[in-house]
Every structure is written in C-alpha cells, then in structure tokens.
C-alpha cells in the first residue's frame, strides 16, 4: 500500500508544478495510513496539494464498488483523474457519434475511453451525464473482475 501511494503521488507530482522533494515528503506522509474514503480528506490528497477546498468538484467521489476503491476527481489541475485501488487509469477524450439504443436520434458528444473501455466511450459532463466518471469506473471494475489494473493502463495516449 505504501509503495503504491508514493508512486501515485509522484505521478501526480509529475503532472503538476511540485518539486520532487515535495512529492516525496507528501508520499511519506501518505504512506503512514490507508487513506479513508472521502475525496476531501487531507490524508488523501495528491502530492503538493494542501487543501482541496477550492479544487473539489461536487461530482468527485471516493467509494467502494464491488470490493474495489474507486476514486474520481473531475478537475485536478484541469484534468480528470481516476484511480482504482490506488492505481491510476489514464483517460482519453474523444469526440464521437453516439447512437442511442432506444432509437432516439444520434448525436455527437464527447466520450472518455481508457485502455480498458477502449471501444465504449462514456460521456462525462455537468448536466445529463454528471455521473459519467463514476459510470466509467464501474464499467472498468466489471472488466477487471478479480484483478487489478496493470501499469500499462496508466500510460496516457492520444487519439
């Protein structure tokens, strides 16, 4: 658990404007306890971030689903971040045609895919699909079954 936390903190640190030294210190702090649920909990913050009060999005979540801890942040320095059992899943945004199964008219929207839901983009927004990131997390948990994300799933890629 400690190792995972430190690596995750370093990943966040690489994405943002924090020094490596800060990230390591934050990682050591994080390593002391298993982060309890609650996206705003101080012990659960990405490296270098002291207070999420102004960063939290009301859609953020940190909860258990089918025995796995799923945690989604919608606007961490402008990015969406998803962790499953503290392992990062890289998300890719694609503009795509959606053809609803109920026969309603097709439309173009923004979908999010990952290495795991690679052919199944999920819409995430602030209105009709405000639960989208959680929906994506649950889809991925279902694909994972009894297993965890591999490191390959954390690598960003562009479409």
């Amino acid at each position, binding site marked *: 658990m400690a190792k995972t936390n430190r690596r995750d903190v370093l990943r966040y640190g690489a994405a943002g404007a924090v020094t490596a030294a800060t990230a390591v210190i934050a990682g050591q702090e994080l390593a002391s306890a298993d982060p309890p649920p609650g996206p705003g909990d101080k012990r659960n913050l990405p490296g270098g971030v002291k207070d999420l009060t102004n960063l939290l999005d009301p859609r953020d979540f940190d909860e258990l689903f089918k025995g796995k801890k799923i945690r989604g942040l919608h606007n961490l320095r402008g990015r969406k971040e998803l962790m499953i059992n503290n392992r990062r899943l890289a998300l890719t945004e694609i503009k795509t045609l959606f053809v609803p199964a109920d026969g309603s008219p097709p439309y173009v929207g923004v979908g999010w895919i990952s*290495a795991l839901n*690679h052919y199944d983009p999920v819409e995430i927004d602030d209105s009709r699909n405000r639960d989208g990131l959680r929906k994506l997390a649950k889809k991925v948990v279902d*694909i994972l079954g009894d*297993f965890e994300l591999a490191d390959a799933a954390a690598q960003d890629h562009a479409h």
Partner: protein
Amino acid sequence: MAVRKNITAITVAEGTAFINALRQFKTTSANGRNYNWYIDQHVLYFARTADDISHAHQSPSFFPWHREYLRLLELDLQTVSGNPNVFIPYWDWTGTAHPFSADFLGAITNGSVTSGNFSPSWGWSLYRSSIQTNFLQRRVGVNASRPTAATVNNVQSYQVYDQSPWDATVSNSYRNRSEILLHNRVHNYVGGHMATREAPNDPAFWLHHCNIDRLWWLWQNSNGPDTYQPRTGSTAGVVDNNETMRPFANGRTPSVVRDIGALGYSYQ
C-alpha cells in the same frame, strides 16, 4: 488461395489448424514477425502516431488497415505452420453460433480462461495486458448485446464510404457506422480483453475482424470495389487512397488492398 469460411462451416480439422498455428506463432517467428508484434501494432496504431495520422481506428483507413493486418497474419500463420491452407474463419455474430467451444477458442466465457484452449496450460500467454493477470479474460454478453441482423442491414445501407471530418463523429458514413455500431459493439459484447486496447490477446479478435472485412467486401460488391475516400491529395490526419498505411510495407495503400481476389483470398 485461402477461402475464408463461416465458423459454422469449418471442419474440426480446419479449426484446429487455425488455433494451433496461432499458438505456434506465439513462440516462433515467421517472416520477421511473431504474434506479439501484432499486439504491439494494434496498441501503437490505435493512437494517433507521430505522423499525426490515425491509421487503424476512428478514420477512413479503419477497413483497409485491418484488411492488410488480417492478410498479413493469415500469411504468417501459413508460413509458421507450413500449411498453406490455414485461413481465418469469420464469426457472423448476428446468429447464435459462437466460437467459444472446448475444441475451438475455449469454452470459458465468464471470467478467467484457466483451462482448455487459450489457457496458459494450453500454451497461450498474454502480452501488454492492462489487467494484472496471466489468464485471458472474457465476459460474453455482460456489458453489451450482439448486433442484430437488422442493425447490420441498416449499417450496410449507408452509401457514402466516409466523409469529412473523417473521424468518429461522421454521421453519414458507412465506415463510421460500421466501426461504432458493429465493430465496437462486438468488442464490448465479448468483454474482458476484447474490450481493451490490447484486444488481439483474444483470438476472437481475428474472427470478429474477419466478419467486419467480409461485410466491407459485401458492401464493395454493392457500391463499387474502388470507393475508398478520401481519394487524392493529402487530407490532414488521415490516409488517402494512395498513401501507405503504417506499419505496413511501402506501397500498402487503401487502393492496393481494395480487391480481396488480388490479395489471394475469398469469402465463402
């Protein structure tokens, strides 16, 4: 001349020759490639590459790229097995017949393939899995249902091959309709590794794409064999009719793969 047959029409010997060649190709190279090379290419060319072109997906070259990909695999399977009659069967998923049987792709469809064909003990290993496991994963029918014959007919009725902006958003496009409504859906229907970027870990990938290729060939028979778009020039971000599709050899363009007879195979 390979004749690609429906999985419902192949003999046990033909099915066995196909899966044994796949297994052999996992550990033995042929023509400078091995099975995992194909997984590498799928992962690499799914994304927009350094040439800023989408070669394999969400672009007009979706059909010809996979046609060349399958043709190359079929050739390599023939080489590695020393059997020039090996062919990729196709899975018409609109019917109830499926390839998940004990004597073909393995009978486990609801989790880890821990025994039988395509299990580690049979001789199948995973490569670049985004799921931490040594077992091939399948969750058939959990996340999506199969496309119906009516959906296939509707998709096949689109007469415009593809058009600007040449991506996943095009509405009036045979290519995009097929890619989203048939291709994506069957990846999600099989689930597990088929839902992932490294989907060719599941041999069902080839049977699925063989059917997609067959449907494109049927579409070409109705709409013309030489109908790829965009035709000329250098349309930004996509492969034009006479532009090489990477990672294939120079000259492997959409134009040269349009006629499957010239490529040495047919559909039965």
